[in-house]
């Protein structure tokens, strides 16, 4: 559920951002809902998957 290569994010104001996609992405809003904002240490040392839980 990643955005396609070439996607960009512009910061318009402190409260508004604008996503720019290379082509229509019907799942974009759903992806934003499920976006993970994890600590980098999580991705570096643990990552997803039951073996890491």
């Amino acid at each position, binding site marked *: 559920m990643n955005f396609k290569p070439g996607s960009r994010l512009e910061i318009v104001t402190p409260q508004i951002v604008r996503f720019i996609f290379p082509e*229509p*992405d*019907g*799942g974009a809003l*759903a992806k934003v*809902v*499920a976006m993970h904002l994890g600590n980098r240490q999580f991705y570096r040392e643990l990552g997803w998957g*039951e073996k890491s839980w």
Partner: protein
Amino acid sequence: MEANTEYWDHSRFPRVKRIVFDNTLSQKDALELLKTGEGRVDLVTELSPLETLRVAESPFATGVKNRGSLMTVFGHFNNRKARSPWRDARLRQAVNLAINRQDLIRYATRGNGVTVPAFLPVQSFGYDPDLAPYPFEPDKARHLLRGAGYADGLSLTMIAPEDLEVQATVVSKMLEQVGLNLELQILDTTAFNRKTFLSSLEQPPEEQTWDIALTSQGDVQNFPVYLHYHDHALGGPWDWVSEEPELRRLYELVLGTVDRERQQTLIRQMERHTRDQAYFLFLYNPIQLYAVNKAVTFVPYVTTRLILTETSVTDQHWSVRQDGIKP
């Protein structure tokens, strides 16, 4: 967790000052604390239907029902095991026709469920109101089993996690009524995942001997092509359907448009195709149950996520009451 009193969106301003999530208590102990006093636990999630009756007797707690959740309880058919019989749609349809869903909901959940026509519950984006659930037709189920070459019955293994034990027991009895011989295995979460979560299997998919795995799926996005369809049928972590070209085609079309009406139409086509092909054992949409302190105004979300934005306390809550905590 402390309230952010400088949050910019005043329409979603926090209504409580502090929330403590305590993961050190077992659900049983938390429920007991909630039922017998105040000041320690205000909210317990994932109640079993039996527990709600006990909560109703408490002077401190009350039960809250979340109708219309985006959750589905269903069964996977193991299409990936070697020489799987589940690639025959007649067998999958027969199993669906053998289930009396009204009785399942009545006996296994004490009425805390709603039938689903296919994969999606009524509040889901893409739910099709014109699609009917599989009827309870045991004679037709037996006919399909005979046609599929199982006139003398078929021995099956069904697995389920502990929280679906009652449901699995009822389902297994219904399947036995049409001539299927069931071995039911109730597994703890880790053991269940090692048989169903494709990236963590103890043995390769083709060596997994189970036939039906009961499970549940929610949808935090209300965009079921991802957490329902992708994850369970189109290459996701629990895809036991294996490759299915028509579903894949519809899935790509949904993602290729931002027209919500067009997306809804396409998801309804996915639902109809999935129902007709009986890719899953469709069971029900559970009503989510919570136990809550009587002085807490709890507002659940259909996603079942514990988002407490609208949740508040009354002036009788122990944290704000002038006379303190009741003994």
